């Protein structure tokens, strides 16, 4: 493992609004996550999980404090530089899949490669490979409307890993799925973490989903309430 952690929160605050209406979504978080970890974030609604995930994924920046990603002060980068970071190193999986409608699975998976300037034929090859990895051979030319929720989430995962990112950020990836489908998705994520060494940070409300992760961090009112590592994973 590298010496510096992949993700380093240093007294990160995130507040919304001013004065009376001020909301402290994150109240001085300190946190370090190393490359290769599989972290589950839990906590009640409104405790700041999504806010933290947006900062981890370089979509947002702290109000104060520092957010270090891969050794850079990512919280101080402008939005276009953060876009480059996301494109090169980060994959996203959302609760609501967030695929482009009326666009085939293959085209959805190709999307991040377009912004990398990858040539068309190479894009298609890489997209097919990623779709195969998530077990969607033969569904490449289906649009989201023609796929089940579980299959759509697999397309979203393929889209997240097609660029071979360092970090996968997943905000409630199983939130819209039934139990059987949720466990299939978790098995897929676990294998990506173990076989490809992909660092995963995932938000979930369910303990049995969090159990797939090697480390569970609980949020409460913008603070970290607990941070526990599975013994066998250490």
């Amino acid at each position: 493992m590298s010496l510096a952690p992949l993700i380093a929160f240093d007294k990160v605050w995130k507040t919304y609004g001013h004065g009376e209406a001020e909301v402290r979504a994150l109240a001085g978080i300190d946190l370090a996550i190393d490359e290769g970890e599989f972290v589950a974030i839990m906590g009640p609604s409104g405790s700041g999980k999504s806010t933290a995930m947006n900062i981890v994924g370089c979509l947002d920046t702290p109000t104060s404090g520092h957010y270090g990603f891969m050794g850079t002060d990512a919280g101080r980068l402008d939005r276009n530089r953060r876009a480059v970071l996301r494109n090169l190193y980060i994959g996203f999986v959302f609760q609501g899949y967030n695929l482009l409608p009326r666009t085939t699975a293959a085209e959805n998976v190709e999307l991040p490669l377009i912004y990398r300037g990858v040539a068309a034929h190479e894009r298609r090859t890489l997209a097919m490979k990623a779709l195969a990895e998530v077990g969607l051979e033969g569904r490449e030319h289906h649009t989201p409307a023609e796929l089940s929720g579980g299959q759509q989430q697999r397309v979203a995962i393929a889209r997240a890993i097609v660029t071979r990112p360092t970090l996968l950020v997943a905000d409630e990836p199983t939130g819209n799925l039934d139990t059987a489908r949720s466990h299939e998705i978790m098995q897929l994520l676990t294998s990506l973490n173990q076989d490809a060494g992909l660092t995963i940070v995932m938000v979930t409300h369910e303990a049995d989903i969090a159990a797939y992760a090697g480390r569970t961090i609980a949020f409460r009112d913008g603070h970290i309430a607990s941070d526990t590592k599975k013994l066998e994973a250490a």
Partner: protein
Amino acid sequence: MIWETVRLALRSVRRNALRSFLTLLGIVIGVAAVIAMLTIGSGTTEKVKADISQLGSNLLIVRAGRPAAPGSGPQQTIRQLGEKEVAALTAHLEGVRAVSPASQKQVRVVFGTESLTSSITGTDNAYLDARDWKLASGRPFSESEVRGGINVCLIGETVRQQFFGSGDPDGAAVRIGRVSCKVVGLLEAKGYSGFGQDQDNVVLMPLSAFQRRIAGSRDIETIYVAADDATPTQVVQTRIEDIMRDTRRVTADREDDFSVRDMTQIADAMASATATMTGMLGAVAGVSLLVGGIGIMNIMLVSVTERTREIGIRLAIGAHEKHILIQFLVEATVLSLLGGLIGIAIGLALAGAASLALSIPFAPSLAVVLLAVGFSALIGMVFGFFPALRGARLDPIEALRHE
């Protein structure tokens, strides 16, 4: 990358085909109007130019009544032109090829069972010279016919078509009003004038015959003067004015009671009037293009709002602001370019139809077409910029949350 974006834009245009088409209507109408107007305009200009040479080059026209001045109102009494002025001009005017008196009246001409209202012109042989008009067959008037006022006539192509088809009219007797007149010659076809007038619907007869039997007066409406090639029309015009003032005893302190007009000037004036018309209609078309541009802006704003989530996804995945900007700019440009191309096709079709209907040349210009293409692309870019920028500036987190 840019090709990718164009494909994406075409797909989005096709997906909302009806909406896209309605949006484009403004651009289509604007471009069609511009193309049609400019093409018809340049056809008309060509026609006017052709008419100048057809009227007879270096032609001057002398008429009774003072030159029309703006706001001068109708003149009370006009002292008509007569034999005296023709004689004076014929005798004293230098540097001219021909001097010819002419009077005109619309009269019904009958032959057999056919009839036609034609422009009957009383004149002499010099008229043919002055107007550069040749005979297709037959002969001009003889000296004695002109002097004696014999009922003989030269007919235009339209009159021949009406009465004789493609046959030979020579020697036939047509009835003009109540007078029978023998056809001695056929005039060469001249076609329509720039004013849309059929120049071949004419019957020429000796002036004195016309005055006595058709007009019933000895007035002369017009004296045509053709300057020779060595003398500028302005010089001839001055000489005509001198002789006319002298003959009609117009003293230096009084206004002329006649006018001398230079056909070249009239043709020029008409060409510039056409240009002004074209310009004005072009301005109207410009307004329509502006409306079209606003339509594009509106639909692009709708499109950006509708696709906020898509923009959020693209931004999260690593799209640069400029990627989003380009995507929507290209879409707006493709949209208005499409409108431009449809407009060009419709405009050219309209101009083609108009040139058939008005019998003017069809004069499409590559430069105008390219200009329209460029202009419609520019409209897309200009009016698409603000919506595109709005899309590009979206906050990815907000955009992803958008329903």
